[in-house]
Each structure stands twice: as C-alpha cells, then as structure tokens.
C-alpha cells in the first residue's frame, strides 16, 4: 500500500468521524415558533395575575381592561394591581405552571387548537379546575383565591397565531 492510499483512507476516516460527531452533538433544532419536540404549532397565550381589593389604591393602567370586563359583570372593587404579566408559548399537551403570589399554583395545559380556538385545561389550586375553549383575544378570567386582604385573579388569553392565513376582506 502506497503512502498516498494510506493518507486517503485516513482522510476519509477523519471526515466520517467528524460527520458522526457533528450529528450526535448537535441534533437539528425545531424552528422557532414550533412546539418543542412535538412538531405541532405553538400556542401563544397572554397571562396576567392581578390582585383586586378595596384598599383605595386605584386601578393599575395595565388592569383597566380587566377592570372594565369584571365590573360589567357586576364584580366591583376599587383597586387592581398587576403582579405578573407575560406572554407564554406552549405546545399542545404541554403543561405550564404559574406560581401565584398566594402560594398556590395554576397549571395551564392547551389540549387542542382548532378553528374554534384553543381548548385548554386550567387547574387553579384550591379554587377551580376547568376545561375551557377560547378563541384568540377571548379572555378567560379565573378567581385564584385570597391574597393580602384582596383576591387574586388569573387572566388567560390566546393570541392569534401568526402562522394562520390572513382573513379575506369582507
């Protein structure tokens, strides 16, 4: 065997070893916006935790919409303080746990997303468990137990998926 053949075999082995190590070390990542490891569309949800009370501090500007939704249904209070507000991204079946300031936990699990919105199972410890379907921008408000002479409220609102085809103008 000539030196050139030996060198060619060594080079080929090195290339193979390099390819194998790359494949093992860095599996392909799902594109952003897809549910991790599930291949389904991700579900975006706005989440807000608010403390309602009658301690005269007024309504946080971020809670104005919540206040109007609740007061229109006869739920009255003079103070609302937003304690957590964020947008969460989940895959269908994935459970997201929210630590509430009163020590309780809320678990949100989107079960299915279809043209009628998101069907989600929500479990607010010590308060209620519910399966609720909500279309994008429909707010589902859960009372989440007492907190500091007031009451906590958890609001969940599915966000319209950007992957959906745009609606035809009417």
């Amino acid at each position, binding site marked *: 065997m000539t030196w050139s053949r030996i060198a060619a075999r060594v080079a080929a082995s090195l290339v193979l070893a390099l390819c194998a190590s790359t494949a093992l070390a860095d599996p392909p990542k799902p594109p952003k916006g897809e549910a991790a490891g599930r291949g389904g569309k991700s579900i975006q949800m706005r989440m807000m935790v608010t403390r*309602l*009370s*009658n301690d005269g501090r007024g309504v946080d500007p971020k809670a104005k919409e919540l206040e109007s*939704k*609740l007061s*229109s*249904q*006869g*739920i*009255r*209070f003079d103070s609302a303080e937003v304690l957590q507000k964020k947008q969460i991204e989940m895959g269908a079946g994935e459970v997201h746990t929210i630590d509430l300031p009163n020590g309780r936990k809320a678990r949100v699990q989107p*079960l299915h997303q279809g043209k009628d*919105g998101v*069907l989600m*199972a929500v479990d607010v410890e*010590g*308060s*209620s*468990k*519910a*399966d*609720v*379907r*909500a*279309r994008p*921008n*429909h*707010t*589902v*408000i*859960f*009372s989440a*137990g*007492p907190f500091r*002479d*007031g*009451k906590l409220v958890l609001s969940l609102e599915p966000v319209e998926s950007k992957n959906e085809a745009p609606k035809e103008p009417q």
Partner: protein
Amino acid sequence: MGESRAMTERDEAQLHAYHDGELSSLARWRFERELRRRPALRGELASLRALRGDLQELDGSAAAPDLWDALVARLPGSAVREPDRERTRGGRGAIWWLAPIGAAAATAAIVLAVLYGGFFAPPTDRGGSVRWIDSEDQSVMVLDDDPDTTIIWVLDGATEGASSGGPGDVV
C-alpha cells in the same frame, strides 16, 4: 397509590353523571382515571349498573294491562260511534281544497326559516365556552354574557365580604 379517600357527595354526583352518560368527554376521561385509582368507586359503579339491570328486568316483565276493551263495553254506544259519524259527515270532502294551501304555507315557512331564521347560520359566535368545571365543593359563578370574556369566579368566603347580595360586591 390505592384507595385513599371515602366517597364524597361530589364523587357520588359525578358517579351518577358518568353512569347516565352526562359527563363531557374530558370529564369522563378524568373520572375514568379516578375509577382506575379507587376500587370503592368502581364498586359503587358496579352496584349502580346492577340496579339498572334489575329495574330494566322489572320494567320488561310488568306488562301493562289493556283496559280499553273493558272501558268500551261500559261506554254508551253513541259516545263510541260519535267520532266516526263526525268524520263521515262530509267533513273530509268539505276541506280537501285546504290541503294544497296548507302545504304551500308550510313550504313558505320552511323557506323563510332557512333564509332568515339562521337554519344554516353558524352557532352564536361566542369567543369561549366552559366545557367542564370542578370547583371542589365551593360555590362558583360562570359569567359569559360578554362575548369576549368568560369569568370563572369561585366564592371563597374569606374575601366575599358580601355574601350579602350577589356578585355586586364580591371582592
């Protein structure tokens, strides 16, 4: 994790709802999970099913007596024959021409219902709906008058200063 708790009122209510097929699919799935975990619950379900079987047997075996012949024998002859006479008094001949008008009116009503009554219209466009709820024996209100909002409000006594009068002052 075996049998951990005794039957509560809620268990009983859910058991009956499950037995009668009244639970939603998700609630049924949850309840079946409970059933797998709790032999006592399974026992109760089995007794319910056995009871229903017994009742069905009873129902089938108790044939209702036909009393019509005995009643007819006691009625005066004129009372029995009266309807026949009414029918043959030329009544059928007198209103035959009303049949096409009735059919036309029924057709028009169906067409109007289809056009304006929303026969094929999609169901009310509510943005959300509660499929199943469990508030662990606490009173709960589901408020969904607003099409953009669903409120699930548990009345936990500690903060409901106002058990005095509905949702007007619940915080």
